[in-house]
């Protein structure tokens, strides 16, 4: 019995030890990747054209789904506000709730989560396939850097496009929210505008933008890192894609809480 207990403790130590070593290794590799990206900035002739290509693909490709989700989020927020507040609070409060919900939370978070699935999965699968078919090795063997050719264009394109998509999502959510409130609650434009302006502070927009930039870094860098380090063939690519989406989504939620506490928590 005592021996079994000792073996279990030993195993636990081994498991914790292995996990800690692996995690430390991953953090180290991720840090090196970021440093390599900064080092690659002077090679703009390589990454700028590819960034434009990626930004076009990612931007146009994601526009419809991002606006669709934002529109539904605005509409549902509007309907729920009506359900909860009608008869208890002045109607112009609906304008405040819809605008603040969209700008502060729903716009950035929903956009990031959608893009973690769309862009994150794509990046991880693309880079993972390139790794297992030795395309990344081929690039290195030709004396070219996979960081500047493959990773930087994807990350920089995401950093440019995702905040822009988030702002469009905010605007769409507001519009659809207003029209839904107008149709279901009979809210006038002046009431909506009054409520929205009454509680609005310029920091709200900055907050939304800062969050979207943090999420953009998460949505692009984590899948790129996981895809770039893919191993073990087609199964590995599948595993990398799933891991990339899950890791990026969880990190987005974690960052959401951290950024909110940092920027709004002190108020």
């Amino acid at each position, binding site marked *: 019995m005592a021996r079994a207990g000792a073996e279990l403790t030993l195993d636990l130590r081994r498991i914790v030890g292995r996990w800690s070593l692996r995690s430390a290794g991953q953090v180290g590799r991720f840090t090196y990747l970021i440093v390599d990206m900064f080092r690659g900035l002077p090679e703009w002739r390589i990454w700028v054209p590819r960034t434009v290509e990626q930004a076009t693909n990612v931007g146009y490709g994601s526009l419809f789904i991002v606006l669709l989700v934002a529109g539904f989020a605005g509409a549902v927020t509007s309907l729920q506000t009506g359900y909860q507040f009608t008869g208890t609070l002045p109607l112009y409060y609906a304008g405040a709730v819809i605008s603040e919900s969209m700008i502060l939370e729903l716009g950035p978070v929903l956009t990031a989560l959608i893009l973690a699935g769309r862009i994150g999965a794509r990046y991880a699968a693309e880079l993972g396939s390139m790794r297992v078919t030795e*395309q990344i090795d081929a*690039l290195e063997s030709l004396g070219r850097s996979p960081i500047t050719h493959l990773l930087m264009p994807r990350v920089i394109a995401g950093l440019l496009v995702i905040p822009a998509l988030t702002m469009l999502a905010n605007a769409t959510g507001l519009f659809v929210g207003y029209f839904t409130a107008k149709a279901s609650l009979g809210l006038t434009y002046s009431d909506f505008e009054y409520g929205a302006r009454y509680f609005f502070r310029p920091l709200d927009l900055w907050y939304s933008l800062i969050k979207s930039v943090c999420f953009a870094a998460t949505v692009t860098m984590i899948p790129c890192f996981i895809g770039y380090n893919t191993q073990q063939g087609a199964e590995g690519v599948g595993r990398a894609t799933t891991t990339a989406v899950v890791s990026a989504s969880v990190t987005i939620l974690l960052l959401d809480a951290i950024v909110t506490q940092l920027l709004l928590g002190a108020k």
Partner: protein
Amino acid sequence: MIQLINISKRFVTNVVLDGVTLEVRDGETVALLGPSGVGKSVTLKMINGLLRPDSGEVIVDGLKVGQLKRAELQRLRSRIGYVFQYGALFDSMSVEENIRLGIVDEEESKDDTYCSNRVKECLRLVNLALEVAEKYPSEISGGMKKRVGIARAIAGKPKYLLYDEPTSGLDPVNADVIDGLIERLQQELGVTSIVVSHDVRGSFRVADRVALLWQAKIRAVGTPEEILQSRDPAVQQFLERDLEMSLIQAEAEGRDGTKA
């Protein structure tokens, strides 16, 4: 010259290479033979710095590969053409763009006329029609992909060529074509080559010397004739496993006769 000095490599608990020493002289072609999973491709990847040995030294052109800085390693790699097992062509690029990627000299790569002419020249060297340049990797056959991979590897006029299983997955006719191509490139370009393979017949055809990797060590090195005459049981076992042994012997006898 390429020198591998006492290199060892293990992946977790699997010892892939254990004290491997090999020298490839300028202008010669060495075939690195051995069963699958014995560390042949790992050895090639160490030569151009894609992998690092756990111990030992890899020296190319007098430079210790493991000690080179990033820029130095990139410069060295520009002198080494690498032909990957499955071509490793970029799916999103046409054949022409793939080959152009092999032109590593900064000035040359900016000159469109030079690049266009060089792509045509490389396609000619690997016996591919010019029309192939417009196609994408998904539109060409496995054998053509290998040849495009070779064209990309020679586009930068390398001093060294490393072939990783150049004939694997090909039918005998296409395998013969690739072997012929390796032989011809060797004569026309005068490069130093290492051909990793488990195809005995093809290796004996293209190589000046053959090295057999067996259980993580170099078991035998010599000319094809010396390897054929080896009394080492491991060498004999490996050679006998090849169904085309009789054909090789017939060819070897023919070669001896010619020399005599």
